[in-house]
């Protein structure tokens, strides 16, 4: 029985990994292509949640989950065009500062517009409840969420690995100078990547709003875990992020099973061990421009 309980935690951890993935993948993409650690990524997640609540009031839950990421992705264009673009080749400390500043500004802006008190958010009642697969208990909503994550993941993978767009992006990650020499401007590609990245974060926010507290600092809550996932997974690696997200979910679940008080700490212990033995991250590639 004990073993079964543990197995249930492992499976739940995998589901939870999907939850982290939406945020971490965008962060990793922007990091890989632009060389910018987007500390404001959590702010787009929070905006996704707040926008979805506003849209849900008018159009209902379904349209809100679709339209909120679109709206945030459009904001992402402005963010890339007027802010990020200036920092691709600059000292990394500058982009860290500017995105960190933006995260603070965004959090305060949310506080001014919507107030510090958390906002109520619910899912349609038909999504509530549990699904039993054999002896395993799942939340119906999280299974749906996992399906959405799988679709998004497949879409992104296809885009990066099976289209000419993806070939340019991947080349840009490794050898931006060579891409430029071939007469390709990377900037429109970068804009698209940022749109996709922050759009995914916003999708995460819209999807998690019914099951988590919607409050101004929610972005700061998620960014730490997402960042840990990216570092564990390794730069530039699509599957590294996927693997790391699942691993983080599973390690946390197992730790909670044995010693619940250490649940959150376990993630950072994992990060520490990975950095100690494999500083590049699990599946990280060597990227010349970062060395």
């Amino acid at each position, binding site marked *: 029985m004990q073993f079964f309980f543990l197995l*249930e935690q492992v499976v739940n951890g995998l589901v939870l990994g999907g939850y982290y993935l939406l945020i971490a993948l965008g962060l990793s993409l922007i990091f890989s292509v632009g060389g910018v650690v987007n500390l404001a990524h959590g702010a787009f997640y929070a905006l996704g949640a707040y926008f979805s609540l506003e849209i849900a009031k008018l159009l209902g839950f379904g349209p809100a989950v679709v339209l909120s990421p679109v709206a945030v992705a459009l904001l992402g264009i402005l963010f890339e065009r007027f802010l990020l673009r200036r920092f691709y080749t600059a000292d990394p400390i500058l982009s860290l500062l500017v995105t960190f500043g933006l995260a603070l500004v965004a959090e305060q802006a949310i506080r001014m517009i919507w107030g510090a008190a958390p906002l109520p958010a619910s899912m349609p009642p038909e999504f509530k409840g549990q699904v039993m697969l054999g002896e395993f208990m799942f*939340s119906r909503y999280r299974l749906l969420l996992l399906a959405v994550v799988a679709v998004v993941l497949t879409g992104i993978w296809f885009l990066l690995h099976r289209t000419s767009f993806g070939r340019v992006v991947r080349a840009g990650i490794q050898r931006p100078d060579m891409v430029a020499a071939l007469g390709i401007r990377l900037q429109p590609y970068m804009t698209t990547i940022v749109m996709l990245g922050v759009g995914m974060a916003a999708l995460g926010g819209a999807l998690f709003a019914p099951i988590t507290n919607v409050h101004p600092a929610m972005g700061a809550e998620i960014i730490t875990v997402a960042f840990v996932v990216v570092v564990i997974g390794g730069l530039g690696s699509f599957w590294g992020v996927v693997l790391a997200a699942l691993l983080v979910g599973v390690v946390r679940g197992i730790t909670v099973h044995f010693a619940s008080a250490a649940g959150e*700490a376990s993630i950072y212990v994992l990060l520490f061990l990975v950095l100690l033995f494999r500083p590049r991250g699990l599946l990280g590639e060597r990227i010349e421009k970062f060395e």
Partner: protein
Amino acid sequence: MTTRRDVLKASAAAAAALSFPAVVKAQSDRIKIGHLTPLTGFLGALGEYAVQGIKIATDEINKAGGVMGRQLDVMSEDSVNPATASTKAQRMLERDGVAVLMGEINSASALTIMQVAAREKRLFLQVGARSDVLRGKNCNRYTFHVDIPVTVMVNAAGQALLRDGLVKGRRAFSLTADYLFGHDLAKAAKNFLTANGASLAGEELIATDVTDFSPYLLKIRQAKPDLIASNLAGNQVTNFIKQYSEFGLKYPIAGFNLNTADAWAAGDGNLSGIWPTVWHHDLNTPGSRAFVAEFRKRYGKPPENHAWIEYVSLKIMAEAMNATKSTDTEKLIAYFERGTEFDLLKARRGYFRSWDHQLMQEAYPFTVKPKGKAKDKWDFLQFGAAVPAANQPLDLLAPTREQNTCSM
């Protein structure tokens, strides 16, 4: 090397230093009050209500002529964390010249401010932190406590649990916020449950920044308890009840700590269980009705309990200063210790117990209204009658002298 910028900085500092005495003099006819409360972090939402509440009280007092004819000047600041809270408290007393300290919601921060108050021998009206140890083991004669302690919260919800037959012979699973307040609450809850014939099926300590409760929900189902005892705090409670509802678990919840703002944030149809509160906006007394009306007018939403408690606390402080005609710590302590009764906008007036400095007052259990009964999104809580009942002594649910280890 001295640059022009350094020279400019130095001269600006010198100018500031020179003009400082003048500023102090100009403001010396105002009574300054240092108000610390968490405005960020997992209790930040509650702190915003606290600041809104104290603003209304300040304006009302000042409009009515102030205290001893002097205007009140309340400095509200984010206490951030226990270390910053004590640094700011020290600074407010030494540099800003505040007469008294007030505030707090976070028990750990309240504890460090209490230490500053004791060291500086100045009054601290501890408004909103509920840990028992603040009034017990760690009590000191410079601190008075307005909010109900965890023992009273547990007993208030506990009365309703006993009535519904949810305790005797039942197995409870407890979830506890992993910091001072949570541990204290868990201890009080455990005492109550075991004293009334329940046993513990599981105990989980949960870090305050946990947002995903799914691994804990699995453990709950694995333990198959009869009752869930929630000793969580702040954002944790909202996250927990949302995800509990998401997973569709059906064990009854005995919540021992929930602020109205956390309940509102849960969203439609997510909250269940029996919970305690110290005050609520539906309370039908003239004072509460007037306060709720003013708050709604100003902020466009009903006040929650932390807005109320900051409001009455400043009124209590102003009343004490007016009555003693002084801001002197010793005179104010004597006034409170005398058992003076204060209007708390409730049916009965409250008083500070002289030996442990806690305010004795009514509390209320609440449940959730059946679906479709709520008038608006603020209205889904069903408040029960006051405990202790009108014919019982006010200190009935508070720890007794034997139980409470406070000695000053």
